[in-house]
Every structure is written in structure tokens, then in C-alpha cells.
């Protein structure tokens, strides 16, 4: 069983089914993107996972237990759910001290957590004057107070400037590389595509895909791979022989469809053709995502 395990989870709010028989697992030492359009049930799922919302049916566990049954939850799981969870008149350092004290942690953890997210200079400022990006960082600092092994983040990139998003990517990557487990939600695939190992995609409360990004790209026939080689002509022939469709050739650039980067790489290696640039078309990844999420909820 994964570090995070969701089994047959269903949540109804009156007549609205927000989460519908959802099951997925998240493994240790990985960053998993939890994706879906707005209103797909991502936030509800994360809130059930954290014991804030009670499921109508099913089970959600972290480290083998429901969150409410974890001893010292702050030392095992860190979560950032919304940027607005701060009293505007409270100083940033006090906001974190309250969480630290309540969790039985030394209050000095507040300062070190602020330093970890680059907010040490704003420690004594009132949170009401913070930008959205600073509030996201403060939320992350709160999640890090107990030095947990699991991070659950709901749309953490919202309100971050490009520099902040870059910083967040690096942060999550190094957290997972040190053995941590991250579940991060987003409604934009491209936002997390560079960071995540796997994705769990939901639409209208239902699971539509749980896969690595490569597997996701492999699923689509229209995926395009752009390859640059000084032997473009030979490469084109080799690829065609391998069953791929050639979209067009332009100088040293070959645009291949109906295949994957992995397959192109193998053919190039097998035929000894040097290639010096290869990119999977990210726009197509986004197309896959849109296709999955728009059709996924339609099934009866």
C-alpha cells in the first residue's frame, strides 16, 4: 500500500457528487501531481484525506492510518490547503508559533520554517500585508514545522510569480529526492509537468488516469516528437521503417507523429544516427490532459 491510499472514496454534498468511487495510491519518495479541472473534486479529496471532511463512503489513509488517528500528525504530514488561512492582524512568526505550540513542537521552529521558505525578513510583519505569493510560502512554512515526510499541497502555485514557481519546483523536487512524498494538486498540467513523477487525473470526481507522464504521452496517437539530427534524411527513413509517421522535415528538424520519444531514441541508437535535440510536444501533453478530463466524466 502506498504512503497515501485512497480507496473507493465517495463524497456527496446533498445531490452533488463531488468525489465518486475514487481510488489511487501515492508511493514514497515521489512527487505525484493530482490533476483535474476546477470543480473536479481535488480539494474535497484532499480535505477528506486530512480529516477535515467526512467521506460518504470509502477510506483515505496516510501512512496506513486515517489522518485523525495519526499520533503527532504535524510531524508526519504537512499540508497547505488555501492561501487565506491566516489572521490578517497576526505577525507571520506568531501564526507559525501557534501551530508549533499546538503540535507540541518548540516555538523556535517558527523561525527556522520561515527561513526554509525565504520569509525570515518578514517574520515580524502582519500577514494581512503579505502578497498572495508570500502567503503561499507562509502556508508551506506551516506545513514544514514538524519536519514531516509527507507533503500535501492544494494548488500551491496559485499566486506565485514565475520566480516563485521555479523555487517551488526545486523545493518539491529536493524534498522528494530526500525520500519525502509529495501530493500536489493543480488544474494546469504544464504547471507541474516538470516536477512530477506521476499524475493522478480526475474529472467530475472520477479517476480518469493514474500514470507516469511518459505513459500518458504514450496513450495518445497524435503525440509529436521533435528531433534534430545532422542526418535528418536517414533518420526519417529509419523512423518510417519503424512504423512512425513523419509530419515534416525541415533542415535538421524531423517532426514525428504516432510514436514516442522513447521509441525515437531507440531507433536512433539502433541505427547509429546521432541526434542532438529531442522534445516531446508539451502542447500535446496538455491536449491529452484536456481530452481525458473532458471525456472522462461523461462515462455513465
Amino acid at each position, binding site marked *: 500500500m502506498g504512503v497515501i491510499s485512497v480507496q473507493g472514496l465517495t463524497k456527496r454534498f446533498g445531490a452533488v457528487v463531488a468525489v465518486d468511487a475514487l481510488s489511487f495510491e501515492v508511493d514514497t519518495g515521489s512527487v505525484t501531481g493530482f490533476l483535474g479541472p476546477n470543480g473536479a473534486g481535488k480539494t474535497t479529496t484532499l480535505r477528506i484525506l486530512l480529516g*477535515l471532511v467526512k467521506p460518504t463512503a470509502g477510506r483515505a489513509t496516510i501512512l496506513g492510518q486515517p*489522518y485523525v488517528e495519526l499520533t503527532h500528525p*504535524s510531524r508526519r504530514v504537512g499540508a497547505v490547503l488555501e492561501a487565506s488561512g*491566516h489572521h490578517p*492582524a497576526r505577525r507571520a512568526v506568531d501564526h507559525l*508559533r*501557534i501551530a508549533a*505550540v499546538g503540535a*507540541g513542537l518548540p516555538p523556535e521552529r517558527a523561525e527556522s520554517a520561515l527561513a526554509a521558505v525565504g520569509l525570515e525578513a518578514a517574520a515580524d510583519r502582519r500577514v494581512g500585508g503579505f502578497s498572495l505569493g508570500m502567503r503561499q510560502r507562509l502556508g508551506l512554512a506551516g506545513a514544514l514545522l514538524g519536519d514531516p515526510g509527507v507533503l500535501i499541497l492544494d494548488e500551491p502555485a496559485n499566486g506565485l510569480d514565475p520566480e516563485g514557481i521555479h523555487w517551488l519546483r526545486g523545493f518539491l523536487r529536493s524534498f522528494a529526492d530526500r525520500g519525502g512524498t509529495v501530493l500536489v494538486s493543480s488544474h494546469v498540467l504544464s504547471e507541474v509537468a516538470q516536477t512530477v513523477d506521476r499524475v493522478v487525473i480526475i474529472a467530475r470526481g472520477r479517476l480518469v488516469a493514474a500514470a507516469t507522464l511518459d505513459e500518458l504521452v504514450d496513450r495518445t496517437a497524435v503525440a509529436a516528437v521533435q528531433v534534430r539530427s545532422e542526418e535528418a534524411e536517414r533518420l526519417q527513413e529509419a523512423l518510417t521503417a519503424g512504423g512512425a509517421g513523419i509530419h515534416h522535415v525541415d533542415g535538421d528538424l524531423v517532426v514525428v507523429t504516432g510514436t514516442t520519444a522513447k521509441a525515437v531514441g531507440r531507433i536512433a541508437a539502433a541505427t547509429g544516427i546521432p541526434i542532438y535535440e529531442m522534445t516531446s510536444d508539451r502542447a500535446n501533453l496538455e491536449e491529452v490532459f484536456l481530452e481525458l478530463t473532458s471525456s472522462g466524466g461523461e462515462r455513465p
Partner: protein
Amino acid sequence: MSDLIRAELLKLRTTRVPYGLLGAALALTVLGVVGTILTAGRDGAPPIESTEAIRNVLGAGGTATIFTLVLGILVVTGEFRHGTITQTFLVAPIRSRVVKAKLVAVLAAGFAFGALASLVTAVVSVPWLAAKDVSVSLLSADVAVPVLAVVASAALFGVIGVGVGALIRNQVAAIVVALLWQFVLESIVVGLLPDVGKWLPQGAARALAEETLADGNLLPPWAGGLVLLAYGAAFALIGTRLLVQRDVT
């Protein structure tokens, strides 16, 4: 549990609202003392040297109950208004512990409000009464009863506030309803149905303070204390039940 209580006390200390409420409570207490002393003996009010007048002067801190009621409401509704309830329940997912910690913190703050109001009352009134040749022994029952009543009522109204806040999580609505009750509705009930009114929270608090009303329609002090305690316990229970059950979305 003690960690959560310390966290709740830290929450109270790190915004300015509780200090503002305390300042307002003390200011109104001073006004009450001054007003009671100045009007003593006029228009049928008991003369200043009477036991009743002295009790009314020393019970002026009872006005703090309004502010501890509001404080109790804010301690709950503020978390929902600012979304901090999410962090609070993440830190302590067993929610009944959070409510208990809030009740203890508000009870402690209520005691502090009541004690400070009584202190301010004594500082203003004792020298003034002495100047009027009315000597007040701080150890006599005439002094101890209203002072203890102020402290106990302030604490218990804070507890009631926590329950009201859990019942009506919208901050503005909760405060409006509570103040409307305190200043308007309860007076109407007392006016129309005094036998019902004496069982209501303020009536109970007045009985506890051995205040004297023109028509004398109050419970005995011990019964007033018990009724107030019962209100506190009932609201604490309702608050716990509601906060434990509801989804936090």
C-alpha cells in the same frame, strides 16, 4: 491537551482584538461605578451608604460579561472567518480537544476580564466612598459576593460565547444575535414575563451578584449561579457537538 490550551492562549495574545475588548470592558466598568455613585440616593435609587448601593457599585464590572461573550464568539467564528480553522484542525484532528482548549482559554480570559474589572472598580470606588465617609471592608460578604459574581459571570459568559459561535459560525451574525439578545430581547422577555426572565442568562448573572431590582424578581444567588453554570455547560456541549460533526470546506 495542554499544548492546545497554550496555542489557544497564544492566539488570544497575538491579535489586538482581546486587548480592545478588555479596554472597553474596563472603561465601561469605570463609567458604571461613577454613574452608580453619582446617582445614589436620587430618584429612588438606594442611598450610597446602603448595602444595595455598595453592591451595585462593586458589581459594575458585570458589564465585562458583554465583552467576554463577544470574545467567546470571536474565538470560534474568527477561525472560520479567516480560514485558520483548517490549520487548527490539521494540528489537532481530534476536534473535541480543540473545543475544550478554547473553552479553557476563554474561561481563563474571562476570569482575567472579571478580576481586572473588579480591581478597577475597587481602585475607583473605595477611595471615593471613603471620602463620602462610607467605609468598605474588602473582606466583608458585601464586597466579596459582587466581586466573585463579576469574575464568575465574566468567565461563564465567555463559555456561552464559544457555544454561540459554534452555533452561528458567521461572525457578524453571531455578534448581532448575541448583542440583540443581551440588550433587547432579554429585557423584553423580562418586562413581559418576569417569571421566565429571571431564568435567562442575564437574570441569573444578576441574581448571582445579589443585585436589587425595583420589583425584586430574581432567583436566589445560589440558584442564579447554578443556572448560569448550566447555560455555560449546555452551550459548551452544543458547541462541541456542532464543531466535531461539521465538514470544514
